[in-house]
């Protein structure tokens, strides 16, 4: 090989190496950039999946929780239905005592005596509904007299009260009243009746 040929071969060889080096460097840079980017977008993709997994868990929980809530409401509705029925029946059944004259008289006497003792006055006025006033009047007075050693003066109000049964005990001028009507007793006992009914029906 001539000197010139060796020289030109050297020039071309160096150029080839340099060219290869330029391309290799560009390829290395590209690979590095791609790897960095890959690591970023794979993280990004992994976040998308992770978010979906979290959301999936929330979806599952929400659906079960909604079902549980709906069932709880239905259970409460059913219980309320039974409770309402039992309390209505109790109110009705308690009011039926008025049909049993002897038993009702005893009960009315007890309500009156309790009220007279509670009001603690010499003279008291008893207020009854029209039917009770007509049925009992003096009978009730006698029963009260039998049960209390010194009942004082017991009178009956001429005006009847609007109640299913029971009695209101007041002083002469009607400024102090002990209300022992069925309605009042029922209202006063309602919270306790609910608790008792819950225990009896649902063991709560």
């Amino acid at each position, binding site marked *: 090989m001539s000197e*010139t*040929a060796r*020289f*030109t071969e050297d*020039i*071309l060889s*160096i*150029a*080839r190496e*340099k*060219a290869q080096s*330029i*391309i290799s*460097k*560009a*390829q290395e*840079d*590209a690979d590095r*950039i*791609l790897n960095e*980017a*890959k690591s970023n*977008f794979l993280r*990004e*993709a*992994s976040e*998308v*999946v992770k*978010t*979906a*997994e979290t*959301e*999936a*868990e929330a*979806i*599952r929980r*929400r*659906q*079960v929780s*909604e*079902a*549980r809530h709906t*069932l709880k409401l239905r*259970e409460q509705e*059913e*219980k309320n239905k*039974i409770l309402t*029925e*039992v309390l209505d*029946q*109790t*109110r009705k059944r*308690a009011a039926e005592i008025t049909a049993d004259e002897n038993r009702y008289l005893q009960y009315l006497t007890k309500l009156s005596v309790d009220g007279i003792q509670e009001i603690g006055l010499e003279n008291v006025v008893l207020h009854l509904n029209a039917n009770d006033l007509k049925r009992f009047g003096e009978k009730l007075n006698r029963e009260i007299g039998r049960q209390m050693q010194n009942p004082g003066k017991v009178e009956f109000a001429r005006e009847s009260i609007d109640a299913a049964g029971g009695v209101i005990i007041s002083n002469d001028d009607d400024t102090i009243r002990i209300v022992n009507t069925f309605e009042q007793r*029922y209202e006063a*006992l309602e919270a*306790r*009746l609910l608790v*008792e009914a819950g225990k*009896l029906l*649902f063991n709560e």
Partner: protein
Amino acid sequence: MSGLETIKIIVDAEKEASRMLEEAQRKATEIRKQIDVTIENRRSEALQSAKQKASEITERAENEGKSEAEKFERESSEKLRELVTKSSSKKESAVKKLVELVLS
């Protein structure tokens, strides 16, 4: 070979070397340009695939949640029916006890 011919050969070789380097630079620029496109394509593929997977995960969760809720509802409805039957059978005795309480 004359001196002139020798110079021409060397000049041609240098031209060729220069062309090689230009070509290499062009390829390097092309590689660098291409990388942005490659990254965007790969990113888009990866995200597309992740979104698809995410959609499958949530869809599966919807179905699983639904069937879990239905199972829970079946079991609880049965328990509720039992509760109602049991409580209903206690209504009469409860009324009696409550009436006693009202009239006591």
